[in-house]
């Protein structure tokens, strides 16, 4: 029944619509921006009314917020956590640091370009983005989920070798020790 093209499309549309209204955010504050997640999620801004709520573990989560800079040590954990998450999964980059290194562009311990290590669906401008901007970013994420364009996870699988190579460049020992995509 699902096999013909049209009904597949209809099912996908309904799926995407449903997904966009129930986005569970992984509770992992990787950097500065995590401080604005608390107001975003609580009474004043209340992102839950849009369908965003916290999830304690990667298995339950749909979206990972990279809240700012990532140190080399964290990148490894983030990659691991990302790979533990189940598709469909999305990544949102917060602020300058994820785009081009931000304030820490010359720090030996923070990566500059997040999209070299993980597929990023939406970037939010700011250092750090305030809750209104965070919500705008999440709304944008919902929009692209609905449009079926939030396909970061597929991109990751397609270009796995390239991502792995980049990850290996900053963490030679660690990635070698770790089994790929098999957490």
């Amino acid at each position, binding site marked *: 029944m699902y096999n013909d093209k049209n009904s597949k499309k209809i099912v996908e549309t309904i799926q995407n619509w449903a997904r966009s209204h129930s986005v569970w955010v992984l509770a992992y504050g990787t950097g500065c921006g995590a401080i604005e997640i608390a107001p975003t999620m609580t*009474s*004043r*801004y*209340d992102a839950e*009314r*849009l369908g965003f709520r916290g999830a304690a573990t990667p298995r339950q989560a749909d979206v990972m917020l990279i809240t700012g800079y990532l140190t080399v040590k964290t990148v490894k954990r983030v990659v691991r956590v990302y790979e533990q998450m189940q598709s469909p999964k999305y990544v949102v*980059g917060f602020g*300058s640091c994820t*785009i*081009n*290194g*931000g*304030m820490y*562009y*010359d720090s030996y311990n923070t990566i500059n*370009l*997040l*999209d070299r290590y993980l597929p*990023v*669906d*939406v*970037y*939010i*401008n*700011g*250092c750090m*983005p*305030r*809750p*209104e*901007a965070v*919500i*705008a*970013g*999440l*709304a*944008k994420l919902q929009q*692209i989920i609905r449009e079926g*364009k939030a396909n970061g996870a597929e991109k990751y699988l397609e270009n796995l070798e390239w991502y792995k190579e980049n990850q290996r460049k900053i963490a030679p020992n660690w990635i070698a020790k770790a089994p790929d995509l098999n957490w």
Partner: protein
Amino acid sequence: MSFFDLQGTLKPLTALKQFGKKPHTLKDIPWKKREASDNYRGLHFNDIDECIGCGNCSTICQNAAIDMIHLEGVEGKKGDSGLRPRVDNGRCCWCALCVEVCPTGSLSLTKDYIYVTEDPDAFLWTPGISNPDGEERKSYVSTHELSLNHFNRIPMPELEGKERIKSFAEVVLGYNEEQAREEASRCISCGICTEVCPDHMHIPEYINAIAAGDDKEAVKIIYDNNPLPEMCGKVCTRRCEDVCAIATRGDSVAIRWLKRYATETAATADITHEIVNPEIREANGKTVGIIGAGPSGLTAAYYLALRGYDVTIYEASAKAGGATMYGIPKYRLPIESLEKQIGYIQSIGVKIKFNTKVGKDISFKEIYDKYDSVFMGVGFPDAWPLGVDGDDAEGSMQAFRYLYMINSGEKVDIGDKVVVVGGGNVAIDAARVSRRFGAEVTILYRRRVEDMPADWEEIEGAEDEGIHIIPQGIPTKIHKDEKGHVKAIEYLKAEMVADDKGGRPRPVAIEGSETVLEATAVMAAIGQMGDYSFLPKEFEEKITIERGRFVVNEKQQTGDPKVFAGGDAVNRTADAISAIADGFRACKAIDEYLSGK
């Protein structure tokens, strides 16, 4: 505590009283933008027309977020680098330091803060282009008071007006070390000034060296393309200061005084030699003859000598320096200072033949034949006469000649009431010199005081010394007494009439407003002119003269490829720094010409 604590169980339940209250949730988000506060630090905005592209924002940015880029439709001009900032929002931290240091105040931050996209390459933000409507949403701005730029110049210590007129002691006392460091620290090192300097001196570099406490390095940098820097430090027309980035909202950096400070640390010719430590190339056997030891001739000579040429200067007067020696009063440029610099130039092997007037003591042809190349820096030795009735009276003279005579140590009888006609620096100089000889001095000028071409500092200095300025006065006649001596000067009052062609307003004499001013001497300071009688007829074809000046190409070369010219006799600006620039350019061209490159 018992197992069941009644109060501890019930009290928390009072939280239920919140039930049914209106929540404080901002429900409009994200459908409506929430207005940020009045000084919110959001996305950048830049007023493209006001910005001069100094790049100070780019320098202060600790995140290397700001690039200076070329924008379509923005062209560089004097006082504008033609570049505009572009912010990488993948670097910016919205600290707004770029706003705080912007000298023009064109850069600001706005209330906008939402920018969301899937494309990581779309975060390059050209303020003012990316948000043309940002003007209305400006929030974090830097006002004159809040700016981190220091808009007020360190005042230059000067002699009091009353003290000054007693002697020819230098009026400007110069910065001390602390003042110089502080003044140098105001500079933002943009380098916009270097473009308008005729000689393109390395201004940001030497000011930075002064700020860093490396005065000797500063002197060395200055001597890279100016062999008479102390003279420039005292009397330069300093067009650099007109375009100073700081001057857009405040006083320009005292570039001239800082140069003066740096060069004064080289107290003698020997010390100068030691500090500059010039690299003199081995003699290459080629010779260059230079006519006139003015700034252009000395400059060409100095740099040619450094390049290994055998240089000889022919000078008509007893001292070198040309107009800077004879045209500038000693309270502005002490003779020792100039002699020190010329002594240094001589010390590297430049030969100067004094009291040798070309055309009289030696013919131009002889020089032309003797040397591999010739440079003419002959200047404007003559001055225009006033050209009114009674101009031939005794005591009516040209201000330029007067200064020449005073500077050569001659005595000139000017009586006790002097009227100087003109509004340029020569007029002010003559007036202030006369004042030092005890005369009461009046300056008569055709236009308004603000139209005077003289430096405003000079005008102020003259007024401090008790010199009276009569603006809008057109001299018509000089009255003579029975001995043929000047008795008075008659002038018409003038009104300013706007020029139809868009030029500056013209003075038009008012009929019947004749006024007579008593005078014992009248000095005309209405311009100088050249004397080219030394040039034999046979050269006239090649070395052409147009409107009183030699015609040269961009390399200072005349129609005769062997002959170069510079200084007042060539350029229209007729100041020392232009002459130095001419000499420096000519040196490079002569080097090229003779080495056959």
